[in-house]
């Protein structure tokens, strides 16, 4: 059957409008492509304009539809603008996928106040701002789905991620809060990725001494025996964005090959 056309391919997001932050590359881009394949119009938000434009081009090459929006999500006016731009263009909003994040490492006593503030702003406050701006539209349009990207490091402790871990754990509780507060109409869930092999991950790796050994060690700690792929995370996001997960809210879905379960 290999190569046979998929005859009854079910589009899970027909006519939905989905906004995905950080979709100029990596996990966000993979989700944008998958969402578009399933009929969604995708608002591709990124701080990197080139990456966002490239993602839109990829969508269009596959017959999808999307628009690129510039935003630095650590800036509240940018976050408000990105939501407004989506609604202005498409007239509605159904899915808000807060995927953009920064990751800085450093032990707690070495973490500067500036790094702390930037990490909390980008990985926690930004999501609050985005949800606050988007919720009236989601409610107006008959409900919707919010997906927030946390991290394995928001579920367990690890060395060297004080600000990042605190922001991501806060995000888990903020998401549960959203699920409880806006329950009947809006669902809100968390994806908690472990080590995902994205361009950003590779960039960090370049600066890591003994990178190959490090990756080998990492792989050994992951029960399924491999790093994650952006597509692994996108598949979960699609499930959470679509009506397939109509009774799932306030959940934390690990995308980590079993890492958090082991720990």
């Amino acid at each position, binding site marked *: 059957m290999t190569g046979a056309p998929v005859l009854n391919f079910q589009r899970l997001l027909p006519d939905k409008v989905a906004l995905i932050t950080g979709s100029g590359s990596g996990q966000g881009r993979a989700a944008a492509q998958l969402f578009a394949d399933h009929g969604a119009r995708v608002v591709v938000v990124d701080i990197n304009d080139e990456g966002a434009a490239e993602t839109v081009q990829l969508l269009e090459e596959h017959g999808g539809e999307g628009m690129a929006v510039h935003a630095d999500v650590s800036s509240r006016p940018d976050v408000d603008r990105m939501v407004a731009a989506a609604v202005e263009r498409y007239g509605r909003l159904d899915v808000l996928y807060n995927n953009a994040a920064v990751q800085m490492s450093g032990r707690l006593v070495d973490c500067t106040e500036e790094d702390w503030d930037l990490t909390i702003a980008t990985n926690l406050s930004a999501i609050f701002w985005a949800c606050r701006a988007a919720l009236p539209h989601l409610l107006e349009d008959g409900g919707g789905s919010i997906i927030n990207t946390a991290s394995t490091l928001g579920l367990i402790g690890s060395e060297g991620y004080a600000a990042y871990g605190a922001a991501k754990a806060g995000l888990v509780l903020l998401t*549960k809060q959203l699920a409880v507060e806006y329950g009947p109409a809006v669902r809100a869930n968390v994806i908690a990725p472990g080590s995902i092999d994205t361009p950003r991950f590779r960039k960090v790796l370049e600066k890591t001494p003994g990178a190959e050994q490090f990756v080998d060690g990492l792989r050994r700690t992951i029960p399924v025996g491999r790093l994650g792929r952006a597509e692994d995370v996108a598949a979960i996001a699609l499930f959470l964005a679509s009506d397939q997960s109509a009774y799932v809210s306030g959940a934390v879905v690990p995308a980590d090959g079993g890492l958090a379960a082991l720990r």
Partner: protein
Amino acid sequence: MTIPGVAIVTGGAAGLGEAIAHRLADEGAAVVVADIDAAGARRVADALTQSGATAAAVPCDVTRGADVEQATQVAAGLGPIRVLVCSAAVESRQSVIECTDEEWQRVLDVDLKGPFLCMKAAIPHMVANGGGTVVAMGSTLGLIVAPGHPAYCAAKGGLVNLCKQAAIEHAGDNVRVNVVAPSATDTGLFIRFSAEAPDPEALRQRIADLNPMHRLGTAREVCDAVAFLASDAASYTSGCVIPIDGALAARRM
């Protein structure tokens, strides 16, 4: 004398923080009462001194690094810093849509960045002195949620993981970091909050009935847990969260 050395208690001028300051003094610690309410901190420190303890008051806004550094220096002047209790906190009751930027930032700064700055300042002293222990005041709302507390839940949820991070980073330095997670206790914040209700007693009973024990917690019960975690009785316990909630979170988790 189960807790020798110096203890810093943020938010020590009232409520749970005040009770904790007294308890740590009773256990033998010299106590630095750090609070944004300078007069209140003075009052508590004076009471401690009168009862025979060593104590000092420091005006301290935990969101300001300079204030936190000042409190740490005062503590270091009294002896080796062994205990940090991060008790300063603010509450907020606004839905996600209603919560303003200012309110969000205020709660995150006091309840999450405050403990970060305090740990960042105090832990190096503990490491230099061969060890110490941090107890952070979490909340049931850092483990489970209730509608109308987005900023508070996010901050307290973040605090749990911040403490786990610190616990792992300094496990080898003999520095332990733990969290107590009280639900509504019959003190400080909760008394002020319930007093604003049309029928305070009815509200108190309704909140008490949320948990399987059908009563509010007491300051003494929180102090017991803090004293346990701060003492050597908990010498193998780090990165842990102890709920003090009449089994409230257990039912909901």
